[in-house]
């Protein structure tokens, strides 16, 4: 018996229907120059149309020339995603008219891409999910458009900037193996992480160097046939991807409940409305009329080429996670967090190399440093203190020269401007009070001065001990080791 309520929730929808999601990711490659000409691939911030040449402007008479490193980066990515690299591949022309496409065609890859049949494995709620990778191929990016009034549908005119036209763009097509928005999100997080790790993409969603489109359909649970596919675009953050997909699941589920057919269309996510909006326009359906690019000879990527790229593949996140557990005894949980960003993993290894114990390094990075990095919007490797300063600071704690609380204060102070922690400790006399006799004297003093607390503690109130510890800390202006003090106090009360 079907519920035809028009207000099914997400949970209700997914009880009845299975979402089938495939993601398409476009990533700009970190090459020096564009895909087919020598203009810079690093165009962000360039004044309009200042990063162009006759080739990427698509002037009459020009010809493209393939950027070899872009091909290598694509093969590198394909290998990191466990893909096959066919020996023969080529570029094709994808023909359509749009003002940001100077030649009236995009040089892309159609039926003989650089790679196929890979997979990406990741965890969702502790369970392993494996998503197939259909293909990874290479093409050129388009220019950018700005619409008068910023809304395409209403703009009476638009302006074109071709700085971005021709930047190498890698397209990663995932199989429709994802079954929820959480899986989609985790897929993207893992994929982005890999691309950053292998140095081919900077993973920046806001600036658009890492873009994602989704294809989503619903089918009744138990069915094997696929439902009507809807394409969703314009999701500029991982959160937006998750929200947009959940919205679509509900939208499609409600329609199906009412016996409606899902329109096969492209919909754009509108963040402000929390909804996807149909982008159907009077534009004629695209017939891309793909044919082999006659200006570019085909490619033969033999075993030597592939093996050379494979040998140059940097360590992948999963390999690093396993190695950190093996070599440094980190827990799987800590290893996963430390390796989420490659820079953090590098920092961890640098700290350990500088003599910091692994667990301490992990704790500092995941705790105080992560907080400061977020608050100051400055990652450790760009901070004034840097890895070296942090290593020195943690070493001071490990040696017992300063206590944890002093160290945290110093970190806050020196993080952005930098400085030599040992020198600061010396100059300001921040060194921890560790002289046993001195501590005993202070403990005796605080016991003598706080009879009420002593009585409370004897009476069973644990917090009373903390009041006594606090008293010693105050007397030493925070420079005692709280653990040692606590230990000494407890000894006093052993019957």
């Amino acid at each position, binding site marked *: 018996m079907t519920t035809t309520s028009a207000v099914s929730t997400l949970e209700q929808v997914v009880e009845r229907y299975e979402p089938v999601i495939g993601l398409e990711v476009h990533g700009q490659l970190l090459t*020096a120059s564009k895909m087919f000409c020598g*203009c810079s691939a690093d165009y962000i911030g360039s004044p309009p*149309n200042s990063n162009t040449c006759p080739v990427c*402007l698509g002037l009459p008479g020009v010809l493209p020339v*393939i*950027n070899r490193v872009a091909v290598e980066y694509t093969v590198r990515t394909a290998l990191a995603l466990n893909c096959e690299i066919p020996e023969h591949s080529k570029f094709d022309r994808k023909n359509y008219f749009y003002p940001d496409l100077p030649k009236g065609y995009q040089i892309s890859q159609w039926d003989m891409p650089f790679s196929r049949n890979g997979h990406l494995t990741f965890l969702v709620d502790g369970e392993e999910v494996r998503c197939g990778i259909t293909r990874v191929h290479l093409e050129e990016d388009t220019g950018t458009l700005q619409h008068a009034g910023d809304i395409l549908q209403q703009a009476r005119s638009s302006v*074109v900037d071709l700085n971005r036209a021709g930047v190498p763009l890698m397209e990663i097509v995932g199989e429709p193996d994802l079954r929820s928005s959480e899986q989609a999100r985790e897929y993207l997080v893992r994929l982005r992480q890999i691309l950053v790790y292998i140095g081919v993409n900077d993973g920046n969603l806001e600036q658009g160097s890492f873009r994602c489109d989704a294809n989503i359909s619903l089918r009744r649970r138990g069915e094997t046939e696929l439902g009507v596919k809807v394409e969703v675009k314009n999701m500029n953050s991982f959160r937006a991807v998750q929200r947009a997909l959940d919205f679509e699941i509900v939208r499609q589920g409600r329609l199906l409940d009412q016996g409606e057919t899902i329109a096969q269309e492209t919909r754009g996510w509108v963040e402000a409305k929390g909804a996807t909006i149909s982008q159907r326009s009077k534009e004629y359906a695209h017939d891309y009329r793909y044919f082999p690019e006659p200006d570019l000879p085909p490619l033969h990527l033999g075993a030597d080429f592939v093996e050379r790229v494979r040998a140059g593949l940097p360590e992948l996140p999963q390999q690093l996670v396993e190695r950190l557990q093996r070599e440094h005894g980190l827990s799987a949980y800590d290893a996963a967090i430390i390796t989420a960003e490659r820079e953090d993993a590098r920092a961890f290894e640098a700290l350990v190399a500088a003599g910091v114990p692994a667990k301490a390094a992990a704790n500092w990075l995941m705790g105080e440093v992560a907080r400061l990095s977020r608050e100051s919007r400055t990652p450790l490797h760009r901070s004034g203190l840097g890895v070296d300063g942090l290593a020195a600071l943690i070493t001071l704690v490990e040696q017992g020269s300063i206590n944890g609380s002093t160290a945290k204060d110093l970190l806050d102070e020196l993080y952005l401007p930098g400085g030599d922690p040992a020198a600061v400790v010396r100059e300001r006399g921040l060194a921890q009070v560790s002289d046993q006799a001195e501590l005993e004297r202070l403990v005796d003093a605080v016991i003598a001065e706080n009879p009420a607390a002593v009585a409370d503690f004897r009476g069973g109130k644990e917090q009373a001990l903390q009041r006594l510890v606090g008293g010693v800390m105050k007397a030493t202006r925070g420079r005692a080791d709280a653990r040692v003090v606590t230990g000494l106090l407890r000894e006093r009360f052993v019957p």
Partner: protein
Amino acid sequence: MTLARDQVAHVAMLARLGLSDEELERYREQLDAILAHVDRLQRVDTSGVGETAQVGGLVNAWREDVRGECLPVEAALANAPKRRRDHFEVGAIQE
């Protein structure tokens, strides 16, 4: 094979060629005749024959990832029929 008028109109639109009704009919006739001739290709036996997209026999023509010179903005925009400051300008994209 007879080429229908709406097929020609569709092709003209794909190629963004604005044609009058009279032109549409004229081209329909001419293209029809040309295609009738070209259709003799179907009689050629090409079983087992590969496609030649390029006669050159070249492979792996590529360049190193080196930056070259860009055009100055003025040169890039010098031929622009419609310009707004340093951008190319176009009309309403959505109708």
